[in-house]
């Protein structure tokens, strides 16, 4: 966000994209750039996650936008996503404001028909020094605040004639105010209803809403997550139905609206009982190896944001907390400050390399500076695994694949003055076990960098695979304990390896006490 703000101040259009929890991190500059405004157009794309497909909460970014007094556009399909982004830049420059384009997981993970147009080259704007506008010290900010209020009112008024705020009059017995993906559900479920489709959901075009409300018999407000539109509309004395019959949780659907608003009773097939298939760590995942050692040592782990959150569930069950990026280290530090050095000796913090580079570094500095003690495991798989293998500052490549010097995590920790920095191969379980025993006993800050690349990084065919010698297998099940999906028990109780899944990491071989599992060359 701050990089985009810099580009904007220098006169160039810029866009920063993030999910809802990213907006929390970007909130600090966002609230103030709302006062500063823009030189080149400035757009923030924020994706909310109704239904929590892969998030730690279900917050509504529109609430942040309202608090920061920043306009929000909300597209309802792929074509609008493109058009609204263009419009966002124009509005940004016209009204001297950052603009948020809000999407949701459903829209972001959808594809539809989009008509492309010729690329337009927008000339850079001149930069002129204007500290009254760009240095937000109290005296200057005080003078900018009235502009922010004026801008909100002006946009609310002008918004009444924006083409993206569109009243579609059909049968007026039912009128629905909606925006984004829920608009599509309304069109499917209530094809005859009148609809006020809001393309700009902050600030709200009050006069347009009042007019629409006056022309329909029963007014419904259909918005996923929080009643942001609803509460404002009701505060103007307009009668409407919203969260009384609709939920603040999860995704909506046309079926939901058919029943709640259309009054239909749907005769649906009953869902069959099916065992859940939760996400799992991949075959060959280095986190499985690391967690199997933590489990053996009966250590608790303060967790962080990444695939390794899956260490919280059976069969590994070692991760105890997941809050936000960086919180593994800081919360471990808090536990030690609250409960003492002895208490922390059966705890560790676990954080991935990319999350460590994101906000783990400052947590660790805080821990060192405030004389904390405790063991921090940096699970270095040389990538950002969960979100699809993005590079980061410690991988030696930019997001565009350009080769750059990698920040050395070990040296970075040493530079903070941490004396005990150890580097261990994630699949060397014996070494990892002895290192963890030593470091957790120590009353100091220790960092253990547990290294092994993400199992999905190497795209070449597997070279070796595990093979079970049935004559030696004692059916003890020790190899199955770390929960590798490539291993199952056969009908005779002996371990069977699924050769379409096994990637030859060798963890099961290490856990077999009878030498029944060996790695065999499978290259053809």
């Amino acid at each position: 966000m701050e990089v985009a703000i810099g580009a904007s101040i220098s006169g160039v259009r810029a866009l920063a994209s993030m999910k809802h929890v990213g907006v929390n991190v970007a909130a600090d500059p966002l609230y103030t750039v709302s006062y500063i405004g823009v030189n080149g157009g400035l757009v923030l794309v924020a994706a909310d996650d109704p239904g929590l497909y892969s998030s730690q909460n279900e917050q509504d970014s529109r609430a942040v936008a309202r608090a920061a007094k920043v306009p929000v556009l909300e597209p309802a399909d792929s074509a609008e996503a493109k058009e609204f982004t263009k419009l966002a830049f124009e509005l940004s420059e016209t009204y001297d404001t950052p603009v948020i384009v809000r999407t949701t997981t459903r829209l972001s993970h959808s594809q539809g028909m989009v008509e492309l147009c010729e690329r337009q080259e927008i000339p850079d704007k001149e930069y002129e020094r204007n500290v009254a506008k760009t240095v937000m010290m109290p005296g200057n900010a005080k003078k900018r605040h009235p502009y922010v209020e004026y801008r909100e009112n002006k946009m609310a008024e002008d918004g009444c004639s924006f083409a993206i705020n569109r009243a579609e009059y059909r049968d007026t017995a039912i009128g629905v105010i909606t925006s984004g993906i829920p608009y599509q559900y309304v069109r499917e479920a209530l094809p005859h209803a009148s609809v006020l489709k809001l393309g700009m959901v902050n600030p709200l075009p009050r006069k347009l809403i009042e007019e629409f409300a006056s022309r329909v018999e029963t007014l419904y407000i259909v918005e996923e997550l929080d009643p942001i539109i609803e509460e404002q509309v009701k505060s103007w004395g307009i009668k409407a139905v919203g969260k009384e019959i609709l939920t603040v949780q999860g995704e909506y659907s046309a079926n939901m609206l058919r029943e709640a608003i259309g009054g239909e009773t749907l005769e649906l097939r009953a869902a069959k009982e099916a065992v859940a298939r939760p996400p799992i760590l991949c075959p060959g995942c280095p986190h499985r190896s690391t967690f199997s050692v933590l489990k053996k040592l009966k250590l608790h782990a303060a967790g962080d944001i990444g695939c390794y959150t899956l260490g919280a569930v059976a069969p590994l069950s070692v991760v105890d907390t997941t809050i936000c990026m960086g919180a593994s280290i800081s919360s471990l530090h808090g536990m030690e400050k609250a409960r003492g050095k002895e208490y922390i000796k059966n705890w560790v913090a676990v954080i991935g390399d990319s999350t460590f580079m994101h906000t783990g570094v400052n947590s660790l500095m805080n821990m060192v500076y405030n004389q904390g003690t405790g063991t921090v495991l940096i699970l270095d798989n040389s990538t950002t695994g969960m979100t699809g293998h993005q590079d980061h500052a410690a991988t030696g490549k930019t997001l565009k694949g350009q080769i750059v010097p990698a920040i050395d995590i070990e040296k970075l920790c040493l530079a903070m003055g941490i004396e005990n920095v150890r580097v261990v191969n994630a699949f060397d379980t014996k070494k990892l076990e002895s290192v963890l025993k030593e470091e957790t006993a120590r009353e100091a800050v220790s960092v253990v960098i547990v290294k092994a690349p993400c199992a999905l990084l190497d795209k070449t065919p597997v070279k070796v695979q595990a093979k079970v010698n049935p004559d030696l297998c004692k059916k003890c099940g020790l190899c199955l304990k770390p929960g590798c999906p490539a291993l199952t028990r056969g009908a005779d109780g002996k371990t069977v390896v699924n050769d379409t899944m096994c990637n030859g990491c060798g963890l099961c071989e290490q856990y077999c006490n009878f030498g029944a599992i060996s790695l065999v060359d499978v290259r053809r």
Partner: protein
Amino acid sequence: MTKNIMIVGVGGQGTLLTSRILGGLAIQAGYDVKLSEVHGMAQRGGSVVTFVRYGEEVAEPIVEEGQADVLIAFERLEALRYAHFLKKDGVIVVNDQRIDPMPVVIGAAEYPENIIENLKQTCRVYEVDAMAEAKRLGNSRVFNLIVLGIAAQHMDYSKDEWMKVIETTVPKKTIEINKAAFEIGYGLHN
């Protein structure tokens, strides 16, 4: 009339390629089309569902319960999980493969018996052991094209249209084997 297709399976089974083929077909035929695919937090191993809707004009990108014309399932348990999305006269095409979910692997739950027989009591079901067929063809990875070949018989495109899209969607080196896989499926259950 909008046609609703669902592709379900286990993360890593190639549902994405299949949905790209279906999307490409709809565009080629001049339909409006929307695709929606949401996966959970991990890269692999979880339950994955993809929706493809095409027709004159498509509003929502998801297929809702009771609306699927064709449910393509790359794994038995996943067919069971999503069977209630099927329309009254909808069709399930299921790859007769078992992949144990973690609760089954660790012994906390049992993999359901007789899934296909169970589904057949209330739905039209076409099953195929696509893995075995694909291995016979020489590449187990093309199993999903075999499943798709069966599903193709319940959609409104000609075989030529399918072949054309397969050619432009799959990696160049694998065009022939993918077409051969599709051909096997297209010849089954008709």
